[in-house]
């Protein structure tokens, strides 16, 4: 019994998008690196060696060493773990919040919708990045704070999306049939509405991971992200920048890593968006 027929079709469609598949492969490799960071990294990301500072790439130090003699490859690999964690957890938080609020607004309508929609508009009024920056300045830098702050500030997009889908789906006959059969609110929302509203949320979440990673990198680059000893792409880049004139290669790896990862997630997002195209709607 194939339960996921729709997603099988989506996957088949997705496979036709070669660049998206390449993006998925890149993310897969990154994820494996992140999980196996301790082995892949070869060195400890925090062990410093003041006799080997600012070394260029060599067989011993693939990406060279930084100003404290720490192995940049090790820091990059551990940074992948942090970046992906922040990306997925932050998006997980805001997708959950967005689905919950959007679902309540779209399903119940009336004053529930009125208040949630106003809240969405209020959230939209803040420039999100500066809101995150301001909040982090108060709560202090840590990767958990970044996850939570991104998670709690970026949900309005998802909420609005889910609200719209729920509004549209609620009047459909299959939903009405379920209500007429005696189904309760929970059943209608989670069995009928949510599965039909999930595809666009997934696309949006994929793009969201890319932007969350970028936000973390920007925050770390500005020094508001993580404590300096935690390796993340943003902090590596920020530290490397000070030595641009004598060790330019240090900026290359974090810059490229951010660029490649963001591109990969965006390609996957685009592939997914094409794959769930309404023409495919079954």
């Amino acid at each position: 019994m194939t339960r996921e027929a729709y997603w099988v079709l989506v996957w088949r469609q997705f496979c036709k998008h070669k660049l998206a598949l390449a993006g998925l492969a890149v993310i897969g490799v990154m994820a494996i690196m992140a999980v196996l960071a301790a082995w892949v990294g070869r060195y400890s990301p925090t062990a410093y060696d003041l006799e080997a500072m600012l070394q260029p790439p060599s067989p011993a130090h693939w990406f060279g060493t930084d100003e404290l003699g720490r192995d940049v490859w090790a820091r990059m690999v551990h940074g992948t773990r942090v970046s992906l964690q922040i990306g997925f957890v932050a998006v997980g938080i805001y997708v959950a919040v967005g689905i919950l609020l959007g679902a309540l607004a779209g399903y119940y309508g009336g004053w529930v919708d009125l208040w949630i929609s106003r809240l969405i508009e209020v959230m939209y009024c803040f420039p999100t990045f500066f809101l995150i920056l301001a909040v982090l300045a108060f709560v202090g830098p840590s990767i958990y704070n970044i996850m939570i702050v991104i998670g709690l500030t970026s949900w309005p997009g998802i909420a609005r999306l889910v609200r719209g889908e729920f509004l549209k789906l609620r009047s459909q006959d299959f939903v009405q049939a379920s209500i007429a059969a005696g189904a309760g609110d929970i059943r209608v929302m989670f069995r009928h509405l949510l599965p039909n509203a999930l595809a666009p949320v997934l696309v949006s979440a994929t793009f969201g991971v890319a932007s969350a990673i970028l936000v973390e990198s920007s925050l770390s680059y500005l020094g508001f992200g993580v404590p300096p000893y935690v390796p993340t792409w943003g902090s590596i880049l920020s530290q490397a920048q000070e030595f641009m004139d004598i060790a330019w290669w240090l900026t290359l790896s974090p810059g490229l890593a951010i660029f490649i990862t963001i591109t990969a997630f965006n390609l996957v997002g685009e592939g997914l968006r094409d794959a769930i195209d309404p023409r495919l709607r079954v």
Partner: protein
Amino acid sequence: MLLEVENVIKRFPVRGGFLGKPTAYVHAVNGVSLHVKGGETLGIVGESGCGKSTLARLIVRLLAPDAGAIRFDGQDLVACSRSALRAIRRDLQIVFQDPFGSLNPRMTVGDIVAEPLVIHDIGAGGERRRRVEELLTLVGLSGDVAHRYPHEFSGGQRQRIGIARAIALQPKCIVADEPVSALDVSVQGEVLNLLMDLQRTLAIAYVFIAHDIKVVAQVSHRIAVMYLGQIVEELPAEKLLEARHPYTRALLAAVPIADPTRRERAAPLGGDVPSPITLPPGCPFHPRCKYREANCLTDPPALLPQGPNHRAACHYVDKVLADILP
């Protein structure tokens, strides 16, 4: 009486302007009364936009009426509690018009048909699966389609799936809202026969709604003709050709009947249904009626008895009768 509808009114606000205050109302259903006995079919016929679908949704309580009473099996559907309503819904089901929109595309046919059983906690596991196969067989599909998805089926097959879902709880009454309107003519007949077979074997009462008077005449015991949210004539199906309301006559005249002795050649109905936002005063049909007199513009006609089980709302029934009797 299984189902009683009394003076039900439903209007929808048209919002706009400051803070979305209603600026006008769409008068969808304007004081409809009707009743259905166990095991019989009441056909409701009318043009698009006359409030048929709203009435269907009111009867199964997907919408709440603004005024009036709806009783099912002696229980008040309007004022009852949520749990009482849930219990009533076991006996009162609905079949929708659109065979594509009425089945959840993300659920298998088996899950769709089983859903009412799950909601009312009937049977379990294998027993439920057997019941679903039995239901699918009953509506003329094979039991092994249960694991497939709705998009793999044609319109007629989907409508059968919708019917299987509706009879899953062995209801006493099914409201069928244009169940065959979206189907090919050849498939229409099959689905109508299925509905009538099910009525014979399961003793289900139907409220059968359609815009095609021919289809309604084929399946119904009694027919109610609806115009602009009101019942304008109600009569036994076998008396349909003796209908006395000018609107019913117009609907009949639009049906090609292979009978060379029929002399009536009424002009087809001109114009459109007036806007349900601003209802015409007096008789709702007067702007399109060829028997219209001055008082039709001011006095709304009452639904008066014309014979056994026959009522019509027209001031000039006599003039219509003079026209149709040879």
